[in-house]
């Protein structure tokens, strides 16, 4: 598989001119070695951000000016306080990374947003680069802590006491696809995909009983569609903040996913969703309605999928029929595959479809024969974790409520290279890898080459004194004049290495680069209007 998901061109859509961009965000759980953190969570998170070694980020602030998270995709605007921290708070909260991403504090947790990527391979390696950056910051925090404390950081989503924090996927989607069609077409997928991308957990957070859950996140969802990410969470999130050209794109914000450790689960989670969205964009409403089932009660179905390890629970559809989760997942797969068989596909699309089909087929076999994992216990997080817990409990003769089992569940997600249990399995060859470790290390410092993240990250690293702030869609430059200049980066597919690499290279100052941009020749970084801030 090591080269099979790779695609240097990122050509996984039938239309080669399409701009298909995605990025992921990981929010981390954090504690001292005792397990406690209490009210210190936000403070330690800020200190963690401040402990990131300087070689990965300079002094730039986060540019909040273009941010506007209160537009709802259903067409209305929600009241809310826009975030506008002062300079000191901005700096304490944010690191704009040379790799094009952002390391920051959100809701009292450390969070890493990976840069925008066009290939699935980049999605994987930039997400993992985040774990490494947080690990480096954590070690530096520990070395500097006068009280000699140590930290634990987990890429998971629940604490066992009913609190959840997120893993968010962002997909650039053509605005021409009506939001109602996204809801109708995506819901069955988001409800059924935990069978291959659930991270698993030993027990329910909400006292639902029944023991092991396939998904860490499913039971925290309460409504089919919604804007909030913290209360009454909706399976399809309606935030409409494209960080981009509003009239052309929406940024679909998917909040149902688990923070996977397995690269295969991550690849399937993002890869299948990316292909489905492209297929919805390219299909007629009639084809969509004929191909993708509509669930009668998506929330109950989501909960049922997560707690049913046999993968057989009947899920009622709005047309009166019922389907099992495997059949539902199969329908979604078939819809996407048929679309690409009609429209044609590049190598990356083919590889995602092959992997998707193989995993669904083996999940089907696994559900029929107990004890048969067919390799899924090397690929799919919840199967890997369940297998590990069962082996451990059996060999140590410990009962199901034992704290060690809950600890194994947690420590599976520990980001430390030498003590995280998933990392341990990985280093021992017990799980399937897609990436080469060297590719991950490169992603700590070098941005993706084929999105605007290249322009952002390279500009930050090359002109650390002049670039005073960036956001997803802007870079703010101090050219020594009386006003700061904001360079709009509205199109995620411009500002690539191919287009802007030579331009950045030939200037020794950001002011010089800005002057060339203003003279008329844009570098693919979006138009420059010299707008003053």
């Amino acid at each position, binding site marked *: *598989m090591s080269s099979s998901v790779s695609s240097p061109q990122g050509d996984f859509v039938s239309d080669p001119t399409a701009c298909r961009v995605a990025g992921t965000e990981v929010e981390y759980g954090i504690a001292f070695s005792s397990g406690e*953190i209490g009210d210190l969570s936000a403070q330690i998170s800020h200190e963690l951000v401040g402990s990131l070694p300087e070689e990965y980020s300079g002094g730039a602030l986060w540019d909040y000016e273009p941010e506007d998270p209160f537009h709802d995709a259903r067409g209305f605007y929600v009241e809310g306080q826009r975030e506008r921290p002062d300079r000191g708070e901005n700096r304490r909260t944010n690191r704009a990374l040379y790799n094009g991403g952002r390391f920051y504090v959100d809701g009292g947790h450390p969070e890493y947003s990976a840069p925008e990527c066009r290939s699935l391979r980049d999605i994987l390696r930039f997400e993992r680069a985040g774990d490494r950056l947080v690990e480096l910051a954590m070690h530096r925090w520990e070395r500097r802590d006068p009280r000699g404390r140590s930290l634990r950081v987990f890429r998971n989503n629940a*604490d066992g*006491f009913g609190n959840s*924090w997120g893993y968010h996927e962002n997909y650039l989607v053509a605005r021409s696809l009506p939001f109602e069609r996204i809801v109708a077409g995506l819901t069955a997928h988001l409800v059924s995909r935990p069978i291959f991308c659930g991270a698993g957990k030993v027990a329910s957070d909400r006292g639902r009983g029944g023991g092991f859950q396939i998904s860490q996140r499913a039971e925290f969802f309460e409504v089919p569609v919604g804007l909030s990410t913290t209360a009454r969470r909706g399976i399809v999130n309606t935030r409409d903040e494209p960080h981009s050209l509003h009239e052309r794109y929406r940024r679909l914000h998917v909040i149902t996913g688990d923070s996977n450790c397995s690269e295969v689960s991550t690849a399937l989670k993002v890869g299948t969703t990316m292909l489905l969205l492209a297929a919805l964009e390219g299909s007629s409403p009639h084809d969509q309605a004929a191909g993708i089932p509509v669930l009668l009660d998506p929330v109950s179905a989501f909960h049922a999928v997560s707690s049913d390890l046999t993968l057989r629970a009947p899920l009622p559809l709005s047309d009166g029929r019922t389907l099992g989760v495997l059949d539902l997942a199969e329908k979604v797969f078939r819809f996407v595959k048929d679309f690409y068989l009609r429209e044609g596909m590049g190598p990356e699309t083919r590889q995602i479809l092959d992997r998707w089909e193989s995993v669904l087929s083996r999940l089907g076999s696994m559900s029929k024969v107990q004890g048969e994992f067919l390799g899924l216990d090397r690929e799919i997080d919840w199967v890997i974790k369940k297998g590990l817990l069962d082996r451990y409990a059996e*060999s140590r003769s410990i009962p199901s409520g034992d704290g060690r089992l809950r600890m194994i569940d947690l*420590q599976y997600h520990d980001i430390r290279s030498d003590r995280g249990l998933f990392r341990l399995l990985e280093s*021992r060859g017990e799980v399937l890898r897609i990436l080469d470790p060297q590719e991950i290390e490169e992603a700590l410092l070098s941005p993706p080459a084929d999105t605007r993240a290249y322009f952002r990250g390279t500009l930050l690293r090359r002109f650390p004194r002049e670039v005073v702030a960036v956001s997803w869609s802007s870079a703010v430059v101090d050219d020594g004049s009386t006003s700061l200049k904001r360079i709009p980066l509205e199109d995620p597919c411009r500002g690539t290495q191919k287009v802007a690499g030579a331009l950045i290279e030939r200037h020794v100052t950001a002011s010089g680069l800005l002057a060339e941009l203003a003279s008329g020749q844009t570098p693919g970084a979006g138009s420059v209007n010299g707008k003053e801030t």
Partner: protein
Amino acid sequence: MSQKSKHSPKREETPSEPVEESAEGATERAKKVREEADDILDKIDEVLEKNASGFVKSFIQKGGE
């Protein structure tokens, strides 16, 4: 890619799985994994948080997002 381990002795080949790895590499790794199959549980005991019960009772996060 399939190697037999103690807990799933009947695991079969899954030829549909594309794993790019040299034949020698795969054989070498499979051998190593077999030898270490039990060892992994001991290794978990070694690295697992010592105060596991206390840790999981204290691990309470304020929700995020």
